[in-house]
């Protein structure tokens, strides 16, 4: 059985009423925190307390709470999703110690403006996908699934990078606020498959253009992104991204 000793913690949390107002760090005390709680359940308990006291609860995003939807994401003591390689919702309080002070901030990036407290706007990711993060195939027009074999290794590499959940931790962790890991994952996923070849050149050129337009920074190969990624997307997808971009430019795109 897990430890029964409950913890008391000091939380320093970014509060910001809306997108245009200035924000600030606020300090809260929480007691009786069970090590079995998830990090977000700890915040749920704090919010119930705040509500009871008549203070506005802290806004933060989460949905599936099982590490797959990508909706949650907090900077915890300066680390995207906190100290473990997982999403914020799958982080548990047993990763912290009694008496600790924990700093909680929203993702920080020009392309992810704060909406309220710990909630940010990541719609820039959707707009990058709109610029080519797909294979153009209308419903009903697909050939028989077995008509195009895909070498198993290619399929496995495609899958391993298609696991990106679009949470934005890579951007938040990057000193440049670059979304290269996110983009590289999609470029690699679709580029590994035969179905992705016809649009391969236009895809990378258009997605990179949108990325830059959104205000994401450039990649300088620091690698913080891959260290923060809860799905452990490898850094070499960025090499693939750069290679595909060079090839496309050579082809005159």
């Amino acid at each position, binding site marked *: 059985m897990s430890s029964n000793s409950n913890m008391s913690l000091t939380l320093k949390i970014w509060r910001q009423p809306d997108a245009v107002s200035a924000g600030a760090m606020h300090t809260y005390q929480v007691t009786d925190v069970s090590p079995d709680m998830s990090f977000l359940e700890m915040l749920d308990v704090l919010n119930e307390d705040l509500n009871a006291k008549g203070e506005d609860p802290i806004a933060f995003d989460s949905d*599936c709470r099982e590490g797959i939807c990508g909706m949650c994401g907090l900077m915890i003591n300066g680390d995207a999703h906190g100290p473990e390689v997982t999403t914020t919702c799958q982080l548990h309080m047993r990763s912290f110690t009694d008496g600790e002070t924990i700093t909680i901030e929203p993702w920080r990036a020009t392309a992810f403006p704060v909406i309220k407290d710990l909630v940010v706007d990541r719609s820039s990711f959707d707009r990058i996908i709109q610029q080519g993060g797909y294979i153009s195939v209308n*419903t009903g027009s697909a050939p028989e699934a077995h008509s195009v074999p895909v070498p198993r290794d290619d399929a496995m590499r495609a*899958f391993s990078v298609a696991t990106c959940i679009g949470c934005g931790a890579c951007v938040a962790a990057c000193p440049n606020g670059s979304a290269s890991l996110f983009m590289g994952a999609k470029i690699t996923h679709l580029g590994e498959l035969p179905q992705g070849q016809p649009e391969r050149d236009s895809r990378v050129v258009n997605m990179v253009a949108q990325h830059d337009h959104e205000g994401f920074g450039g990649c300088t190969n620091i690698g913080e992104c891959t260290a923060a990624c809860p799905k452990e997307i490898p850094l070499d997808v960025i090499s693939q991204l750069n290679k595909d971009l060079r090839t496309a430019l050579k082809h005159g795109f």
Partner: protein
Amino acid sequence: MNYEMPDTTTTADPSQDTPAEMTDDAAGYYSPGEPIVDAKAPTGPIADRWQDRKFEARLVNPSNRRKLNIIIVGTGLAGASAAATLGEAGYNVKSFCYQDSPRRAHSIAAQGGINAAKNYKEDGDSVHRLFYDTVKGGDYRSRESNVYRLAEVSTNIIDQCVAQGVPFAREYGGLLDNRSFGGVQVSRTFYARGQTGQQLLIGAYQALERQVAAGTVETFTRHEMLELIVVDDKARGIIARDMVTGAIETHLADVVVLASGGYGNVFYLSTNAMGCNVTAAWRAHRKGAYFANPCYTQIHPTCIPVSGSHQSKLTLMSESLRNDGRIWVPKNAADCEKDPRDIPEEDRDYYLERIYPSFGNLVPRDIASRAAKYVCDEGRGVGPKVDGVARGVYLDFAAAIERLGKDGIEEKYDNLLDMYERITGENPYEVPMRIYPAVHYVMGGVWVDYDLMSTIPGLFVTGEANFSDHGANRLGASALMQGLADGYFVLPHTIRDYLADGPFEKVDESHPAVVEARTSVEERINHFLNVNGTRSVDSYHRELGNIMWEYCGMERTEDGLKKAIDLIRTLKDDFWRNVKVLGTNESLNQSLEKAGRVADFIELGELMCIDALNRRESCGGHFRGESQTEDGEALRHDDLFAYVAAWEFAGDGEPPVLHKEELTYTAIEMKQRSYK
């Protein structure tokens, strides 16, 4: 994954099939209505029905399509696939989701796979066999025409997804791999490791975003539908709240599609995402859409148990773990707090192996779930006590580790055991895992005809939000199939028959029906913000969940359900007088969002109990204590309950009206199951 064992269906033993007494348990809780029939259901040979309907359904001239406006609520598999497909066809589509991106809808969390009758293994699968398995899995409470169509289009789904770049598992030759899932005897499940739902949803999401770029689809993220607009008896739009600014927006259209998912969160704790809710479907119900079989809930036996009162959601672990893990509790309640490794073999009760010697740990979901409840009710549960009761049973891999080695288990179950350790902090290679059942999926939903249209003309309902395909229980790997079947291949054909009469007369925002819808939304929001009570929204939700889990969960009885209805009515009254919602409407306000959802869950909870009370039989995921065999097995009553219970809203405080749709089977014979 419903059936983890070979087909053991036997023809019903007539001696066991004693008719239930003609009691009307729900008398006084409802009023009887006219029978309902599916007017669009084609007749003729079952294999021809869908082809016939597609041909009969009228076409819409391509130049007219851009003049037709379609609203789609929800961006899971059923919603995103429909939005993409209808956008490609040239209609004007508005797509709504409460999440910050369409890609986050809860279809993403489905693990196991998607069924399709491709018969790539040449193992005897066919459209007819998938149809047969699905009807049987649904315990003969689904509509056979719909299920046949589902099986029929299943093969197109795989083609479509592969072309989109969905990275399904493949064999060395480069062709798609299949596995057997849920114990069915054929291998028809396509999968992408344990993340099939995620990969399928990303495929649909990318198709949707492609249409956004093409200008045919406009997305409204962080928007929640709060009311349906019905003008001259037709669905003509929705009232939605922009969850960032609080703006109450009116969106008008020629047709509205709800693909808003299931309502498992009525139980507060479930494997659903935090935001999953019934509001879109419930508002439509209140405006005239019948709600069918609300009591049909699927409870999954292998979830990680609740660890404390702080628990916000439950996590499912693949049921495949039951293939190698042995389930047990101590024989003596006194041993329950001991380290399980110190409990000798003779003091352990491997209760499933004991009660069901032939299937043992692989009995179906509902049987495994109820058995776990019973042993915990006896005080033999293990793990942390929540509200004084330990609710957990051991799932022990010690024997399997001895047999296969730690590496063998690791290889077979990939990251499942690690996931368990991350959540519980316990190492399952050393200490037996603990599991307990949790609400996972709902088969009930908005009543729809064969065209997926509700009783409100112009309101279509797809995916988990409707009731049509899974009967009283759903087979594993069939939820993903239904969502994509509806969105890619069914709705786009059936909706055109309705739209062929359009564009409909333009509705103005000043139309009284629009004003009424908008005003009611504003009044409700103002009410929540001004009650200024003492209890948080979550506290009501949790209390509702406890009532539902206790009395309308794994086992339902007449007395329990009546008690639950009383408790829910009291809770509802208190909620409206005493809820505390801080902040304003004009900003992101998560308490306000939850207040509206919980208000609707409370009303739904009451209807679920009335439906369960009326259905004095055990079938699929619904087990009535009063309807079991001498051995304690579920006993269906085809003589009395082979119908869909479609409930009509009759006004606040008025008993709902029950309309029965008789179920008839022409292509399949009804049988009773047995797992002893």
